[in-house]
């Protein structure tokens, strides 16, 4: 039968890896937003050659399952790192590459394609008229960007960024495939130790749900405040 004391035990056990998972997700969110920003800029200004390469790159990222990419990177990244470091003269054993690095790189890349779309949309949401008004008042490019465009784009993008954060946390459950221990991996381990998988997975599901409920509440409150302002 279902044992609630096992559930409680698993729940606490899994809670231990929650900070690590959240931190990992924050790091991935930050890196993918940075990369997404660069992609958005390249596409916005249609920089020749680079823009085409980026287009193929993002289309590849969007068209491949995360699991496949994760495995691909797990086997390819150490070799790439080995090759690149060899050029600069550093000896690097491909087997020394921490799988956490592979997870960070892979998910930062996959999320960057989505982040770039969010950023592009946020910038487009600032009306052309306001930008013209800033120009007509004598704002230069940087002043227009920092005083008119950025504040509005950021407010527009923030709920979407929080949503991306949730997506990343859930996507990290795949990380166990390459031995990185997140919420899901921890549940598997705890289940295996007690041979009570059901309780472990229920605990994991509850924790995912809890995190996403808190984040959703945050987003809703923010959006409500936003709508009140303007």
């Amino acid at each position, binding site marked *: 039968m279902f044992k609630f004391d096992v559930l409680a035990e698993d729940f606490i056990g899994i809670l231990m890896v929650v900070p690590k998972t959240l931190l990992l997700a924050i790091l991935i969110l930050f890196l993918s937003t940075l990369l997404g920003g660069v992609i958005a800029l390249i596409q916005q200004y249609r920089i020749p050659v680079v823009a085409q390469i980026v287009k193929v790159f993002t289309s590849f990222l969007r068209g491949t399952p995360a699991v496949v990419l994760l495995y691909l990177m797990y086997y390819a990244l150490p070799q790439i790192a080995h090759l690149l470091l060899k050029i600069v003269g550093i000896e690097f054993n491909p087997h020394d590459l921490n799988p956490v690095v592979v997870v960070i790189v892979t998910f930062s890349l996959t999320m960057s394609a989505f982040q770039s779309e969010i950023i592009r949309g946020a910038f487009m949401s600032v009306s052309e*008229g306001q930008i013209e*008004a800033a120009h007509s008042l*004598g704002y230069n490019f940087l002043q227009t960007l920092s005083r*008119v465009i950025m504040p509005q784009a950021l407010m527009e993008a923030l709920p979407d960024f929080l949503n991306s954060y949730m997506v990343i946390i859930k996507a990290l459950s795949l990380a166990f495939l390459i031995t990185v221990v997140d919420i899901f991996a921890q549940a598997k381990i705890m289940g295996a130790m007690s041979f009570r998988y059901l309780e472990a997975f229920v605990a994991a599901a509850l924790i995912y749900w809890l995190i996403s409920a808190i984040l959703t509440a945050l987003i809703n409150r923010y959006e409500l405040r936003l709508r009140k302002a*303007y």
Partner: protein
Amino acid sequence: MLTLKNLRVAFGEHEVLKGIDITVQKGEVVTFIGPSGTGKTTLLRSINYLEKPSDGEVKLSDVGINFKSANKKDILKLRRKTAMVFQQFNLFKHKTVIENVMDAQIAIQKKSKKEAYEKSCEELEKVGLLEKKDMYPSRLSGGQQQRVSIARALALEPEVILFDEPTSALDPELVGEVLKVIENVARSGMTILLVTHEMRFAKNISSKVVFMDQGHIVEQGTPEEIFEKSTHIRTRQFLKEYYETEEELAVANV
């Protein structure tokens, strides 16, 4: 003090302004009238360099720009001496009314917050919206938003203020309050260039009226000369469409 010479603007193959020459004296109120698509708005926007003219020169007190060789510095200088009031108001929607009026003073004129605040209150008082200073633009009516945008322009103490169809986007009952504010601005001695379809207002407020058609200036003169004594057939035809009743036609003597 404001001179335009041979101003030409083209959108691709289509030439919108075909060589405009005009001189505006300090304190003059110059109104541009004419059919839609004639280039009146483009003319105003060129003075602010929101359109990029293909040829011509502009001179505003000590700033002179040849449009063929304009650099960024010149353009900023020109923009800082002029202010534009748009058809769609274009207030910064993430800033409150007072922040809208303050921001350029702080960013561009490098005023202290206190100075900018005081100046902004003064200008908002003039347009009768001081009590709305902490509201966001979306909470205001179109007429109120336009009055804020006028305060924002005036707060920079420009040498010339450009009104681009300031009442065209407004509900009819809101037009009056905005026209009244513009009238006050004109009375204060500000140099004004105005594009409008409010013919009666143009007639009352202008020191000079310019009739444009198909990218050219057809004629210019005092309101009386244009509205009542014009001998140009295009001008008379255009004005006829604007007088609605027989009575008005008779009074205007078109």
